[in-house]
């Protein structure tokens, strides 16, 4: 093989690899990316049960209830229009409280019932999951970062 031809082969190989990466990424994104739901979305779209998704909204006032085991909580997530009942076992982050915003990662176990594996905490004072920014929830502090 001449040097020129080999360069061509290498360039093609790189191109194939990158196109492959983009295709692989896009197909995985199709499965994984539309992964954030508000309660209204969840009710409207009939999210596939058991699939890992994020649920974001407001913790409804007066909905927080603690199970006798001391580490499980039930609460309702609302966006004003629709409401989903969520259950979480674990230690909740400090900014989780009634009437404030929440993003929970987990899955729907039945329509309108959500089992959370993780309540997303903030990486730092000003971090908020992108889904919550801009709607006035979760406003804390004035520190820049």
């Amino acid at each position: 093989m001449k040097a020129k031809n080999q360069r061509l082969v290498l360039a093609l190989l790189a191109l194939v690899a990158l196109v492959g990466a983009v295709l692989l990424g896009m197909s995985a994104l199709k499965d994984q990316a539309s992964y954030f739901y508000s309660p209204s979305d969840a009710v409207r779209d009939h999210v596939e049960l058991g699939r890992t998704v994020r649920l974001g909204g407001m913790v409804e006032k007066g909905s927080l209830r603690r199970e006798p085991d001391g580490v499980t909580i039930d609460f309702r997530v609302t966006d004003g229009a629709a409401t989903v009942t969520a259950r979480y076992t674990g230690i909740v982050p400090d900014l989780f409280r009634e009437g404030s915003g929440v993003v929970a990662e987990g899955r729907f176990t039945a329509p309108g019932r959500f089992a959370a594996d993780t309540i997303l905490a903030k990486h730092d004072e000003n971090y908020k999951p992108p889904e919550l920014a801009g709607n006035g929830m979760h406003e804390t502090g004035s520190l820049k970062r």
Partner: protein
Amino acid sequence: MIAEAGLAALWIAAMLAALQAFLGLGSLKAGGEELLRAVRPVAVAQAVMTLGAFAALMWLFYSTDLSVELVAEDSASTVPTLYRIAGTWGNHEGSMLLWVTILAIAGAAVALLERRLPERTLAATIAAQGVIALGFFAFLLFSSNPFARLDIAPAEGNGFNPLLQDPGLAFHPPTLYVGYVGLSVAFSFAVGALLTRDVGPAFAKAMRPWVLGAWVFLTLGITAGSYWAYYELGWGGWWFWDPTENASLMPWLAATALLHSVTVLATRDGLRAWTVMLAVVAFSMSMVGTFLVRSGILTSVHAFALDPKRGAFILVLLALYIGGALALFGARIATVAEGNRFDPVSREGALVINNLLLSVILALVLIGTLYPLAAESMTGEKLSVGPPYFNATAGPLALILVAVMAAGPAMRWRRDEIVAVARRIAIPAALTVIALVAILLLAPGLRILPLLGLTLAAGVAAASVAPLWKRNLRRTPLFTWGMVMAHLGAAVSLAGMASESAFTKETLIAARPGETVSVGPYAIRFAAVDPVPGQNFTAVQATLIATRGSADPITLTPAQRTFDNPPQTTSESAIATRWDGQLYTVVGEPVPGGRWQLRLWWKPFVTLIWLGGALIAIGGALSLLGRSLPRRKVVAESTGFARFG
């Protein structure tokens, strides 16, 4: 006075950067050689001025000068001394100043230390470094001035983000930044070599130590950041595929690819265009990362509206630098003399596969990180891309990459026979199979990724030390040791990740003081809960006494800290490290019945993750030593242009 002096130093440094670019480019013209002599002191003076500005800001933070807006906003006199100092870079403006300071020092280091590069290429390189610095000086001065004064100084500052009040702050950001910004040298080298059309083994040998150095710091910074997040956030996880983390992983992937391709260029004069391209891509990824983290776009696309100037400014800089370098690449690369060809079955063949896989992983991480931003700005749809995407795409490819890593070092340069390679890696391959059988027998029911991870880790650990087999260890060159160490580190780290993912035991319970709970092999007595005062917080601290078999009991004291300025609670995990893993404990809220939430993990061999990272960095440092110790013969031999091409 000090703030004004700092600002003045910054302006002078910016002008020196402009002068540096001008002199460097001017010296490329015929008869401009004289200018090159002037460019070195200019680069050094620029670094001294920037350092002065940085020291000024540090002093303002240390002495809590509240008339400076940044200090008032991000610090307070009650903040402990360490965090008043390290707090200098715990905010946007300060961290950008650190970024620019390191950039200027890197430029001065090139001007002072670089002796291997041909004069003209060096001049072009220093000019490129000046142009980069100029852009970021402009960013600081026009949209992120750290020295801005307040009309009226407040009585007390806003305080400092409690999550950042940890010794990790003193180490992680500076290390990471040295890595990020160190890659600018590779970028400038590439631009310089393109300007003078001088890409060859001499260029690669000159560039390699700089890439190695940046890569070592990047590795250390990422490893430290991962451990910091692991113990500070109290979630028990060590990597979250958070965009901020991806921003540091992407330059690392590119730099790792570059490190390997630059070796092909240095040794075999192959992959010329590709190596130059990677050098451009690596620092471009650093700038993309800086843009993602510093523009506020990560919080949301809306952050643009909050401070449109800043985000737009970095975006323009990005477009200028990356676009400019790529345009130069497109215009010049066809005129760079062709490199050597090579046999597919050879060391360089394996390194090409390494480079392809790293590039594909990089592309996947980049797509996953930018997709939500792109989707939101185009369709307004809010979505996020989380661990399932990254694990499903990057995970399998990383495993293939690790497998290639086992075979690569066993191959010869130029040309090899498949049978001979197979014979050389027969023992590690056999060990891999034995490991697979052993794991299947001892720990049945593992998921596929942890299973493959553990198996491959065993095989690769064996294969990575194979290059030392039957060698006189004392005469083995340092860079071979470096390669062995770094590859071993990757295997060690992989073993830790797989073990953590496969064998972690977790207990979550609400317990009363006096009760005993168990997690993994440990019985843990919940001895007491006490209030404990701290310098600028009050803590509620649990005392846990953990016993395993007849070993001495371990006392752990996880706590919840409540800061009042700013008002925020942080959870302080308590971790006990043993040779075979870590016991990780977190205390939560009080719940009715006099109980407290406790979250306990036993994480077997989790420490290997960061130990592996440290080994990789040590490997890089050894290579760096091995490559930069004087080896004049080799340098004299290569003149810069292809000997074969």
